[in-house]
């Protein structure tokens, strides 16, 4: 990983509502870490319909997570990766894929359940999780009021948290 490598955050380009077949790739690698009931994999495999070579890996225990880097490392150029997982697991697989040399364009990620969102306090440099719709919050570390801005830092792994003094907010 280098400092400008992609990281997974709630607005990442990799995140999709449903998977699409990339005709320009030689192979499709699907990694699923969710239970079959919530899975979007079946309809996708139906879409592929023998048009492309694909490999499906269903992960259901810790041991498989430990081996994920090994699986990703041995993929050849021209592989398109599909990740279907809950947020924390998706983060692990996505990071392993970037480390293995995938670009963000070569990964589609489908998140089951909630995405996580973080804000970086510019007063004390503390990173904390916030709700998806929150526009301001209080820093858990230094207690300052923070306005959550739209800018994300890969280096700091959060959205900008502008410190402000609530006693002086213009009434307009």
């Amino acid at each position: 990983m280098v400092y400008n490598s992609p990281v997974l955050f709630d607005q990442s380009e990799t995140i999709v509502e449903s998977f699409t077949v990339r005709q320009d790739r030689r192979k499709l690698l699907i990694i699923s870490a969710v239970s079959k009931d919530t899975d979007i994999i079946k309809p996708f495999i139906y879409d592929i319909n023998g048009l492309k070579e694909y490999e499906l890996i269903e992960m259901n225990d810790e041991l498989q997570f430990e081996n994920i880097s090994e699986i990703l490392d041995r993929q050849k150029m021209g592989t398109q990766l599909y990740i279907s997982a809950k947020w924390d697991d998706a983060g692990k697989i996505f990071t392993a894929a970037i480390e293995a040399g995938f670009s963000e364009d070569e990964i589609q990620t489908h998140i089951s359940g909630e995405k996580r969102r973080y804000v970086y306090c510019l007063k004390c440099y503390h990173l904390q999780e916030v709700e998806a719709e929150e526009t301001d919050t209080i820093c858990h570390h230094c207690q300052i009021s923070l306005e959550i801005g739209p800018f994300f830092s890969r280096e700091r792994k959060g959205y900008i948290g502008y410190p402000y003094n609530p006693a002086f907010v213009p009434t307009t």
Partner: protein
Amino acid sequence: MYKSTNLDLFSYPFQTIKEGTNYRYSNDLRKLEKGQQDCVVITPEYKKQIIRKRELLKEQPDVRFQSYPHTMEMQWEVAEMLITMAVERYPEHFQVEKNGNHWTFHNFILNETESFILGDASSIELEPLDLIGRHFATDFVLMVHRDDNLYLEVAQESYAALFSPHWNKGMSFDEIHGPVPFVSRTGVPLAERVRNFLLRNVLPGEPWTRINWNLMANRWDVNYETLDTWGPTRSLVTPENAGKLVRLRVEEQFFYRMPRSNAILFVLNTQFLPMEDLALRPAWLEQTYSILSDIPKPMADYKGFTPFIEPTVEYLKNLVEKVKLQTN
């Protein structure tokens, strides 16, 4: 807080704007002429600025200086360039003795000496640009050229205007300028246009410059980290106190392509002039009044002076009349 006292050295930002026309955003980069490619300037405020810069770096090292460990070689390259420029332009103030890679840099204004082995970071206590940067009143940002973009890898700054080395570390030119709301007539975002211009035109031995300006209320540096402190002071400005509280903040920017690392060094020379001192140059006063009274709201919002632009313009209007009465 300091202000520019030698107005001949003050980079008045509206010099190139024709009389009767007003300020709008444009690509205003200008190539530096041969023989005038130096970014080291010693003003009467030099000592004051250096003392303040070093205080800030000492008190808030994590806020004021940021770098990646792999940047040492390019930092040395910048340090070498700055020392060379200083010694050539001001031999009475700066001197360097070279014994192979063993360099001794003398700063006679501050009566200080730095001895180091060029290229050997273990021979100094600070990082190369952090050390040599403390001898110059300007801020430094080193942007590395990767994937058709520029990425911030080193920054030392003490006069931030909604910028933070800590926050902006590792960001691309486009990400740093994310808050810039303007697009060109052809619909291309301004930041993207400027980035492409810099990448194509800033070449080794061909530095460029531009002047950026803003208004500051009672404040030296307006970084993100202290927004809660200075934000509210913007509403304290009145037509009576604007002369002292509001300053024209000018950032003379220089862009150098570093020949060895291919990075672009941004040098930012920040100067302040209180509104009341515009009376010392009546032509500047009239023009600044004219420009500020016609500033589009999105620009004032972006620059952050919307909360005090009205009382400032009111103050300037009164000052223009007062100066006219005195000269008639």
